[in-house]
């Protein structure tokens, strides 16, 4: 009999075990919770509670108009934030990539530095500022304040990928376009913009999702007037204590996320996930 000898690929086994236990299984558990409800007569026992299979959680979620409103607010907030981040950071990244002052990326470093301060602390600082200039006190501005906070928090995440693409941009292509008689505007639209699409896509994926779901900013700056989808899940878990309803909403989110990922993967041949945190180090 061949004795089992250690080889490098065996290291994959404990890793696969960890993934199965703490990445795959938890997601399956969410799906299981989403399709069940607490029922004393149920025939399945889940974490010591009898449950039965049902679609009720989904029906209930989509039949409440307040939930649909939350979905619209979440996506509205995310889209406005992402668009603003792109509009602000696109020219900025362009200037930084071309600037002679930005030797070895010193200027860029100045823009990335705030990212190193705790996220919650940064948001809190924004709240103090908005309060000091009197914008926080009016309820009408809650949505605007939340957008300001989100743009402030996520701006470095859009500057980074755009800068990375622009620094690699081949100048001779732009010169060629000008030599061949294109006006600056059409050079931009037909040469520069298409070449920077990968940067734009990765900037969008880095901002769109957290702004839809991370309720830290909307809770801190929204003055109780801005509820996003992540907050609804949170309250189902920590105040309403209906884990099944919370899991159903999480599952809706999961489906949306995977569809978006599938679509954006069609646009980039990059191996996907490197988006968040890329370039920080």
């Amino acid at each position: 009999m061949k004795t089992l000898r250690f080889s490098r690929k065996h290291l994959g086994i404990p890793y696969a075990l960890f993934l199965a236990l703490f990445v795959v299984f938890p997601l399956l558990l969410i799906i299981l919770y989403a399709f069940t409800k607490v029922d004393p007569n149920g025939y399945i026992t889940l974490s010591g509670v009898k449950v039965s299979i049902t679609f009720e959680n989904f029906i209930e979620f989509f039949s409440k108009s307040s939930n649909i409103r939350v979905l619209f607010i979440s996506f509205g907030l995310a889209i406005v934030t992402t668009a603003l981040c792109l509009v602000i950071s696109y020219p900025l990244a362009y200037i930084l990539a071309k600037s002679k002052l930005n030797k070895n990326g010193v200027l860029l470093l100045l823009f990335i530095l705030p990212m190193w301060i705790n996220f919650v602390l940064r948001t809190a600082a924004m709240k103090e500022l908005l309060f000091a200039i009197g914008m926080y006190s009016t309820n009408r501005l809650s949505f605007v304040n939340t957008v300001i906070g989100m743009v402030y928090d996520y701006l470095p995440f859009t500057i980074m990928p755009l800068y990375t693409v622009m620094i690699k941009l081949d100048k001779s292509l732009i010169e060629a376009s000008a030599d061949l008689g294109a006006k600056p505007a059409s050079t931009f639209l037909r040469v520069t913009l298409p070449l920077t699409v990968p940067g734009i896509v990765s900037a969008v994926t880095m901002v769109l999702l957290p702004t839809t779901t991370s309720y830290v900013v909307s809770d801190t700056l929204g003055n109780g007037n801005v509820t996003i989808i992540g907050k609804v899940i949170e309250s189902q878990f920590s105040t309403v204590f209906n884990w099944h309803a919370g899991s159903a909403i999480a599952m809706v989110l999961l489906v949306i996320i995977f569809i978006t990922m599938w679509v954006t993967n069609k646009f980039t041949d990059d191996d996907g996930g490197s988006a968040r945190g890329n370039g920080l180090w």
Partner: protein
Amino acid sequence: MVKKLFSGGYVILILLILYAPIMLLVAYSFNMSREIGIWSDEWGFSLYGELIRNEDIMMTVANTFILAIVSSVLSSVLGTIGAIGMFYSKQRARKALNGITQIPIINAEIVTAISIALVCTMFAFGRSYASLLIGHVVLTFPFVVLSVMPKLKQMDNNLYEAALDLGATPTKALFTVIIPEILPGILSGFLLAINLSLDDYIITTFTKPATFDTISTYVFDAYARGGKSSSVPALRALSTIIFIFMILFVVIRYVISNRKAAKKERK
């Protein structure tokens, strides 16, 4: 000329906006005013004294850093094991493992958070330090894998084979050949893990024991639920200290990496 002025002005404007909130906290950390926006006549370092005397905050700061270091060490070990195991597996296994590794990165943090909370309840250890650690490891290990993978790709595979031919056991070859080669990747993954762990709020709040607080959860509670302004002015002093440390850290790193690059160029 006008164009240059315009672009310079734009860069400065964005910088001002990015730094305004932090500078406001820094300025008010030397002022005794209870509320930001109204200057008090008293200036000085008394908020820093308050900060040091506040045992809750000191405890929180210690908690945050210990958690970040422990979870990042675990993540680095797991991520390194995973990256090596994955890289030398057959293509099918590699693709599957790689796909699953990406899930925590793609997924919304809130979904990851509740999924781990559900698993921990099921395994009956509820919200404890263990669940918190698991949460942070799941949050950070994919980034270690992502930073180790390219180093494995760059490595010359003959080195390992040579070590085996020269009589090293596979384990010895792993520790004396592979690990030293990919160490820079492991290190940058570790630092990224620390940064993500220090920053995290959502996973922490869903997996932490009730009486445990990190800087994120403490500040969130003080601000999001504390009305208009923070109920704890000493937090301004804390923000200032964190800010100064971060600047020092980033600048030192920047200088070191530039020196290395310069040395390489000379060679």
